[in-house]
Structure formats: C-alpha cells, structure tokens
C-alpha cells in the first residue's frame, strides 16, 4: 500500500517502452484469439454430428408437433402424428413459432401433393432461399381440411443456411 500511494515514485510511471509493450500485448492477444478460433473450429469438425441426423430430427416437428403443421383435435386435445392441418400449413405465421429464426442453421421447404383439386401446395421457413436442391424426404401424411381427411405426399427440402 505504501508503494502505491508513493507519489514521488509515480512520477515516471509511463516508461519510454510502453508503446512497444502495448503493441506486443495487442499482437499477442490477437495471435491467441486466432489460435483459439482455429482450434475451436477444428474441435467442432472433429465432433460433427453424423450427416443428416440433425436435419432428420428437426424435420420431424413439422408433421408431429401441434405447434407446427400437425393436426390437433380441438375437443380432445389429441395430436395426430404424421398429419398435416391444412389451415396451419397455409398460414405463414405459424413458422415464427414452429421454427424461430434465431440461431438456426437450416431452412426447409414443403410441398404437399395429391390434394385433389388443390394440386400442389407449398410452404417454407422464412429463411428459405429459392434455388434448386435435392429432396430430402418424401412422406405419406394424412391431411385434415374442412373436417375431411385426405392422403397426400409431403416432400421436404432442406438447405444449409
């Protein structure tokens, strides 16, 4: 404490080599930062999730979760797995709850075929960019529309954002 409060000693506090020390600290810190980022990306690649596993898990919500397209009986509350409620499917607002945009790495597009007179109906997540890409999965689903049930084919496309 005596040393710190010594005003005489503090006179020459900033030495002539201080700019070099600051420069060294900046370069050193920058190098460490790059090293950590490089090692972090290396670690991330080495622990990568097997191909398509994450996409497969994520796409399940669209036809299984009542917060997405899955049909939920209003009276019993029962949710029907592998089903599509057409009212939800054609409501773009549902995506902001079902698949919020923050932090996600994927975008999805859906095409519902075999809807009789309605032809093909499509929906997509808000971050979908229209470009050609391979189909990820085709699935037979039950479509609920105006208290009627129809069978249809749901095609799901996935993009890495």
């Amino acid at each position, binding site marked *: 404490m005596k040393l710190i409060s010594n005003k005489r000693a503090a006179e020459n506090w900033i030495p002539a080599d201080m700019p070099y020390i600051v420069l060294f600290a900046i370069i050193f810190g920058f190098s460490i930062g790059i090293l950590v980022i490089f090692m972090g990306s290396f670690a991330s690649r080495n622990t990568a999730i097997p191909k398509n596993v994450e996409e497969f898990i994520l796409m399940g919500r669209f036809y*299984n979760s009542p917060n997405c397209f899955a049909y939920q009986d209003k009276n019993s509350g029962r949710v029907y797995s592998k089903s599509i409620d057409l009212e939800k499917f054609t409501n773009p607002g549902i995506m902001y709850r*079902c698949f919020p945009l923050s932090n996600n790495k994927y975008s999805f597009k859906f095409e519902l075929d075999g809807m009789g007179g309605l032809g093909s109906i499509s929906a997509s997540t808000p971050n979908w960019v229209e470009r050609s890409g391979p189909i990820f999965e085709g699935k037979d689903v039950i479509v609920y529309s105006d208290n009627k049930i129809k069978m249809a084919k749901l095609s799901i496309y996935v993009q890495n954002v």
Partner: protein
Amino acid sequence: MIKKGSIVIRAIIFVTISAVILGGLIYIGKSYGSGEVYRKLIIAKEIALILDAIYAYPYDSLVYYEKDLTGLIVEVSNNKVIVYNAQFNNRNLDPTSVDYSFIPTTINKINAKLENPKKIKFQKFNDIIILKNEIDKQ
C-alpha cells in the same frame, strides 16, 4: 530517471499479467490436449439434439441423459446449450466453454443451470420442457 517504487509496481503488474496469460494458455492447452473440449462439445451437441427431438415429439415425454458430468456445468439459455467447467461458475470465465444451439417450437423458453449433473432428466409436460439434475430429487 525511474524511481525504485515505480519499478516495483511495474514488476508486480507484469508478473501478474504474465501469470494470468500463462495460466490461461496452460489451461487451454490442457483442455485441448486432454480432449476436455471435445467432450464438452459432444455433450452440448447431444443435449441440443435431445431437446430438438423432444420438441418434435407431439406428446408429453420423459428422457434421461445418463452421462456423469461431474466437474461440468450445463446451462440452457437463449436457445443454446452451454457447457463449461464447474470450477469457473460463469461461462465467460472459462476460455474453453462451448455452446450449441437448438430450435424450440414454443414461446416457453428453457432456462436451466445444472451443476455437476450425474444424470439429466428432460421432462416435457403440456409443452413445457424442464431439465433437472436427477440427484436433486425435487
């Protein structure tokens, strides 16, 4: 002329800063060398995938993650699973903390902090997911 007291203060500051930097580098080196970072990343990714799968599941559910994570803290906040060493108690203090994001389907956000979990219980009831350290017995 540089005064004696000034030299002592400079020496103390430089030694302290050097010790902190050296300690940090040794810790980072040990974490990568021993595979601790890889372990944390794998845990964060596995838990994020479990949460994604639970969100995709239409019914109430109960899932156990049966890995002994003693020495680690698992934190879930802002749609991210964060894993860091328990000795730091704050992810910002751990230079090798990791995180991985998951995507919720509800506005009910998960906020959990599990210290030294031996077994994590994921419980989904009425669209609300709760994470518990199973030894809590709450």
